[in-house]
C-alpha cells in the first residue's frame, strides 16, 4: 500500500483571497489543514521608524496608510496620543466631527469587508452593492479633506478644516449626463451635512439589501456557520479585540467602556454574537453598520446646530488662519516654525487606543521632549488576530482558511506596518 504523507502548500502571497500580501504556508492532510504558518512582512515599511525621524505632524499621513480601509481611525489613535502628552483639550465641535468620521470610516471598512469577504466565499453581487455606498462615503472624505482615502484630516488639537458648506457635485461628462446626472446630484444640492442626512436616511435600506443577499443565503451559511469558532477565553488569551471579541459573546467596546471623542454623548448599541463563528461575526458587523449610521445621524444633528472652532487656537500646535499670515508677523512666524521645526511634546509616555473597525488600534508614544517622537509603536488589531491563525484553522478544510482570513478582516498595511 502506498504511504500517504502530509504535504506543504503555499497560499499567496498573490492569492486573490489573501487580502493583500499574505503568504500562508499550509501543511495539509488531504483537504484538511494540519498547520498554518503565516509569513507576513511583505508590506513592511518601517512606519514606526520613519515616524521617529520626522516631526510629529508629518507622520499623520503615514497613519492613513496603515489600515488603508479605515484611515481616519488610525489617525485618531495617533493624534490622541500626542494630545494626551501635551494635555490639549480638543474643541467640542472637532470631537463631534471626529466621532462622525470614525463612524463613516467604520461603515467604509465594513462595506469593504462585506464585499470582499462575500466575493471570497463565492457571492459576487454583494461587492457591487457595497461599493456603490462606499463611493458616496469616499466623496465625503474628499469633500472634507481633498483626498478620497489618505485624508490626513485629524490634527493634534482638532481637525484641519471645518465641514464644507457645499457638497461637491458631478459634472456633465460622457458617462454622467441627463437624468442620470440629475439623480447623482440630487443629494448634493446643499452642504455636506445635507448629503449625510440623505445618506443616513437611505443607508438602512441598503444594509437590508446586503442582508437580503447573504443572511439567509444557504451557501453563505454553509460557508460560515460553525466555521472558525473562537471561545471567549481563547479570544482573550490571543489578544483579540473588536468584532473578534464581540462575536464570541463578550460585550466589550472601547467606545462604551473607555469613551473618547463624543461617544459618551451619542446613543448606540453594541451588537454581540453568541457562537463565536464566522456567521456571528458577519451579523455583528452588519449590525455595527446600522449602529454607525445612527451615530452619524446624531452627529449631523449636533453639528448643524452648533458652529464653533474645529481646532485649538494654540498656534504652537495648530497653524494660524491663512488670512492672518498675510498681515500678521507673529502669525507668519508661528506658521513657519510649525511647518519646519514642529513642536516639542513634553517628555513622557502614553498609550492611546481607539475602537477601530477591526479592533483596538493603539498608539504607544514615548517622547523625550523633542520635536520628533522617540518611539512610536502602533498596536494593530489585525496583527494580533492573524497570530491566532494556526490554532483557529487547524482541523478545518482548505476552503475555510479563506473564510477565516475574511472574518479576521485583515489589511496588510496595518499587519506589516
Amino acid at each position: 500500500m502506498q504511504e500517504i504523507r502530509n504535504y506543504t502548500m503555499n497560499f499567496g502571497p498573490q492569492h486573490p483571497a489573501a487580502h493583500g500580501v499574505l503568504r500562508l504556508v499550509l501543511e495539509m492532510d488531504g483537504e484538511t489543514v494540519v498547520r498554518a504558518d503565516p509569513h507576513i512582512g511583505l508590506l513592511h515599511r518601517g512606519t514606526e521608524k520613519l515616524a521617529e525621524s520626522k516631526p510629529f505632524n508629518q507622520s499623520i499621513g503615514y497613519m492613513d496608510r496603515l489600515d488603508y480601509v479605515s484611515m481616519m481611525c488610525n489617525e485618531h489613535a495617533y493624534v490622541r496620543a500626542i494630545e494626551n502628552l501635551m494635555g490639549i483639550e480638543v474643541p467640542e465641535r472637532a470631537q463631534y466631527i471626529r466621532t462622525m468620521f470614525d463612524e463613516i470610516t467604520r461603515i467604509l471598512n465594513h462595506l469593504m469587508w462585506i464585499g470582499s469577504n462575500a466575493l471570497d466565499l463565492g457571492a459576487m453581487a454583494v461587492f457591487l452593492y457595497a461599493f456603490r455606498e462606499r463611493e458616496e462615503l469616499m466623496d465625503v472624505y474628499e469633500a472634507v479633506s481633498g483626498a478620497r482615502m489618505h485624508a490626513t484630516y485629524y490634527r493634534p488639537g482638532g481637525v484641519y478644516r471645518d465641514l464644507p458648506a457645499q457638497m461637491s457635485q458631478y459634472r456633465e461628462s460622457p458617462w454622467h449626463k441627463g437624468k442620470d446626472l440629475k439623480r447623482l446630484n440630487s443629494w448634493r444640492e446643499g452642504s455636506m451635512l445635507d448629503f449625510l442626512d440623505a445618506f443616513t436616511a437611505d443607508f438602512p435600506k441598503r444594509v437590508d439589501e446586503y442582508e437580503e443577499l447573504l443572511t439567509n443565503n444557504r451557501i453563505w451559511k454553509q460557508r460560515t456557520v460553525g466555521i472558525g469558532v473562537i471561545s471567549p477565553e481563547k479570544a482573550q488569551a490571543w489578544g483579540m479585540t473588536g468584532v473578534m471579541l464581540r462575536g464570541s459573546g463578550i460585550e466589550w467596546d472601547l467606545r462604551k467602556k473607555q469613551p473618547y471623542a463624543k461617544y459618551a454623548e451619542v446613543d448606540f448599541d453594541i451588537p454581540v454574537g453568541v457562537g463565536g463563528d464566522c456567521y456571528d461575526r458577519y451579523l455583528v458587523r452588519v449590525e455595527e453598520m446600522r449602529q454607525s449610521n445612527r451615530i452619524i445621524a446624531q452627529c449631523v444633528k449636533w453639528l448643524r446646530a452648533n458652529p464653533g472652532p474645529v481646532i485649538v487656537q494654540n498656534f504652537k500646535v495648530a497653524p494660524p488662519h491663512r488670512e492672518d499670515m498675510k498681515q500678521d508677523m507673529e502669525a507668519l512666524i508661528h506658521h513657519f516654525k510649525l511647518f519646519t521645526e514642529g513642536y516639542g511634546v513634553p517628555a513622557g509616555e502614553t498609550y492611546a487606543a481607539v475602537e477601530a473597525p477591526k479592533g483596538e488600534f493603539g498608539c504607544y508614544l514615548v517622547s523625550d521632549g523633542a520635536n520628533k517622537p522617540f518611539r512610536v509603536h502602533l498596536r494593530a488589531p489585525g496583527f494580533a488576530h492573524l497570530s491566532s491563525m494556526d490554532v483557529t484553522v487547524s482541523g478545518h478544510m482548505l476552503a475555510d482558511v479563506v473564510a477565516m482570513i475574511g472574518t479576521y478582516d485583515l489589511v496588510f498595511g496595518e499587519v506589516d506596518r
Partner: protein
Amino acid sequence: MTDTPSNSLAERLSARFGDTLSISVVRNEVTAEVPAADLLAVATALRDEAPFSFRLPIDVCGIDYMGYGQTEWDTETVSGTGFSRGVEGEAMGRFNWADRPRADSQPRRFAAVIHLLSLEHNHRLRLRVFCEDDTLPMVPSLTGIWPGVNWFEREAFDLYGIVFDGHPDLRRILTDYGFVGHPFRKDFPLIGNVEVRYDPEQKRVVYEPVSIEPRVLVPRVIRDDADLVQAKAESADKWREN
C-alpha cells in the same frame, strides 16, 4: 493620592507585590517596572488573581533607549554665539552603516514594554522590563501565560534583537528572509543597508548596497526654554504638568 481607578489599581499592585514593582501613575496610566527575573511570577499573578485579572494581552513592544534626550541643535546658548546651521550629533537617519554611532555599553538600553487589559475591571497596565545586558538583551517570554504575545515578541526580537527566553518559535517576522541586523535599533541607519532591483541580464532580483545618501530635513530639537513656557501661557487650554 486621589481616589481614581488607576490609583486604586496602583495601590493594589503595591500591596500585592511590594518592592518588586516600581509603580508610577501618570495621566491615569499605570506603569510598573518589573525586574526580568520576577516577570513570569508577576505576570502569572496578574492574569490569575481576581483583583487584577489581566486576561487580555494588548501589546508587547521593544524600545531602544540609546540617545534618549539627545538633540542635534543647541537651543540654549545660541543667542550668545549666533545661530549655526551646523547640526551636531548623529541622530537617526543621518548615518550609514559604516558610520553608525557606537554606543558605549549603556545600561538599561533595551526594554520590552507590555500592555495588558482587564475586561472585568476595565483596567489597563503597562509593564516595563529592562534588559540587563545590552549586548544580548534578554527577557523571559510570556507565551506560556498569554499565547497572544507570540507574534509581538517575535516582532520585538526581529526589530530590536531582544531575545525572549522560552519562546517556542523565535523567528524573524516582519523583515525580509535573510535580513541582517535589527532595523529599529537607534544605531541602525534609516536608509537601511541593502536595496533590491530586478536585473534584466541575470533575470532575477539582486540585492545591492544602498546608493542613497542619508538625509534628514529637520533637526531633532528639545526646547525646555521660553518656547514651551510661552506656549503654556498662550494656550487657552490647560497644559498639564508632566
